[in-house]
């Protein structure tokens, strides 16, 4: 957990308390309280429909919270949306630049909306930085997913924001483009930019300085990757051998076994209580039909466990 260090205000980029938002009576974000320190890459994780997008939209002034308050870069998220829009770059989940404008035209549009001096020049520099030089006059709608995402990021950082809110920026993008994208994010963070990025990918979560896990409107875990894994207190066995499918069926019936997940040629058996898990699997471990090894819980194990628990709570 981030120690609720009440340091100088400038150290905190995002500081919100008890944000609530519901649509048509359906609660989407519930009592969300979070702090993000400046200069961090903060991963925002959670299943589909868990309220990640809604939270990001509340942070950048696109949605008004039903209750709760907070600041973004020190600006009130309710009252100072104008300032927030000026200093926060928001990259939407769906590509939302103009498909019928070229890369250059889109960037010039953004530069002009942000009232940058010499918008043409700013757009030209952005095109260079993005390595889009030979595509500058291509229509944005004709670009591949990876290039669209690169353009969207370029448009976001063009007005030199202090905070980036990225909503699943790498969904549907190939691994190479994803890696390039993350390298760019780390470069930006090194220059002092704060980045809040929502994602589904575990490997991306591990590239963040800190992560927060949100499910069905509730913030369930916060901290560095190691802290989140440790705080889940999951015990884990990795099983290899034959007929794993049958074993999985058998294991799922047992009390003390909370999760059974096949990983390639192995099976991850996870329990929230080490003693109970060990007791429940003692007889199977004794037989030499399978090979049992103690494993470390992965972030994915933790998340799937959290997801299962929150579903239990709100079923």
């Amino acid at each position, binding site marked *: 957990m981030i120690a609720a260090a009440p340091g100088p205000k400038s150290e905190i980029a995002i500081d919100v308390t008890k944000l609530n938002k519901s649509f048509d009576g359906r609660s989407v974000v519930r009592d969300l309280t979070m702090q993000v320190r400046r200069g961090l890459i903060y991963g925002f994780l959670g299943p589909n429909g868990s309220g990640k997008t809604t939270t990001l939209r509340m942070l950048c002034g696109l949605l008004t919270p039903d209750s709760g308050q907070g600041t973004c870069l020190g600006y009130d998220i309710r009252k100072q949306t104008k300032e927030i829009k000026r200093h926060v770059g928001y990259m939407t989940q769906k590509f939302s630049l103009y498909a019928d404008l070229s890369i250059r035209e889109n960037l010039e549009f953004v530069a002009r909306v*942000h009232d940058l001096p010499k918008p043409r020049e700013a757009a030209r520099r952005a095109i260079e930085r993005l390595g889009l030089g030979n595509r500058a006059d291509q229509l944005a709608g004709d670009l591949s997913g990876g290039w669209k995402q690169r353009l969207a990021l370029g448009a976001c950082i063009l007005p030199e924001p202090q905070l980036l809110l990225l909503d699943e920026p790498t969904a549907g993008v190939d691994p190479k483009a994803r890696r390039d994208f993350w390298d760019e994010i780390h470069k930006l963070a090194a220059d002092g930019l704060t980045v809040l990025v929502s994602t589904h990918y575990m490997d991306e979560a591990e590239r963040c300085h800190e992560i927060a896990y949100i499910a069905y409107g509730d913030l369930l875990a916060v901290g560095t990757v190691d802290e989140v894994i440790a705080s889940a207190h999951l015990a884990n066995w990795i099983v290899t051998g034959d007929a794993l499918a049958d074993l999985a069926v058998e294991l799922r019936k047992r009390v003390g076994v909370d999760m059974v997940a096949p990983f390639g040629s192995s099976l991850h058996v996870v329990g929230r209580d080490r003693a109970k898990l060990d007791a429940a699997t003692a007889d199977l471990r004794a037989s030499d039909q399978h090979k049992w090894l103690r494993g470390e819980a992965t972030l994915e194990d933790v998340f799937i466990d959290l997801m299962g628990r929150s579903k239990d709570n709100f079923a």
Partner: protein
Amino acid sequence: MSADRADRGRGIRASLQRWYAMFVKELIQLRRDRITFATMIFIPLAQLLLFGYAINTDPRNLPTVVLVQDDSLFSRSFMSAMRASKYFDITHVATTEDEVDSLLLAGKVQFALQIPANFGRDLIRGERPALLVIADATDPSATGGAVAALQGLTASVFSRDLVGPAASLNGKPAPFELRIHRRFNPAGETRLNIVPGLMGTILTLTMLIFTALSVTREIERGTMENLLSMPINPVEIMLGKIAPYVLIGALQMALILVAAFWLFSVPMVGSLMTLIGLSVLFIINNLSIGYTFSTIASNQLQAMQMSFLFFLPNLLLSGFMFPFRGMPDWAQFIGEILPLTHFLRITRGVMLKGAGLGDLQWDFAALVLFMLAAMGVAVARFRQTLD
């Protein structure tokens, strides 16, 4: 069992089933889309009502100004006969010819009757004095019936007044001469009326649709989210979206004007600059109204339908298609709150009558008012968040 499975999805029954599924789906969607549903009901209904009741190509009770320079029995008889014909409604009494001219230019009256001095005396003397009737013939169909009725009057209008020694003047030919001046469009050519009107009609339709789609398109394409996350406000967005179309509208207007002069030989009696200035105002007016629809509609189809819903009364009740004064009062009232009605008065006034800005001040004021109202609604309606 396996034969049953193989047959699944084939045959008329299955086809009907798919049709039914589609039918129900469409029905549900239509029911959910209230605005589309309302327009589908309202358009035919409106057409029926408008075509059925509003159209009268033989309008009565046309406003008339009288300039009576002869206070005689005959003057009074003639005026009451005009009233009795139901075609004329004496709304103004003028004392000078200038007054008559300005009323005609402003379009406040359709007819002017001038009874010259000594009309009664000359009539009794059998000198066949002339009565002057000026008709605003900009729209020939609006005056045709009234002029015919007037001519029918001449033979019998004074039969009861011509008694005693003057009785011999009764019968044919009439004891006076009726001079009818068809002002502004002496040949009664319909195209002179239609072409300036068409300019307004075309501009209304094209301008409305341009902007009606603009906001809904942003929403449908998902670009609105990005736009709203940037520091730009609704007024900037609105004016930015309207501006390019002002140029397009001006271009359209230029083309129509050129066609009006060269193809239809429509005269340009008034000032071209006045016409251009007021036309630009009219263009902005329609763009603002279209933009307002765009902020109210939730998708492009709705925006299109709202535009047509607005265009229809413009077409039918503005005086473009049917003489304005031939419509019942309620239809005229609706007509008064449509921009095209005022623009038609402007184009016909400037091009055919030579009216200036002073004559058209009310129409100018109405256009400014409509524009500000539409923009106000649009800015108020524009959703700055995704709430």
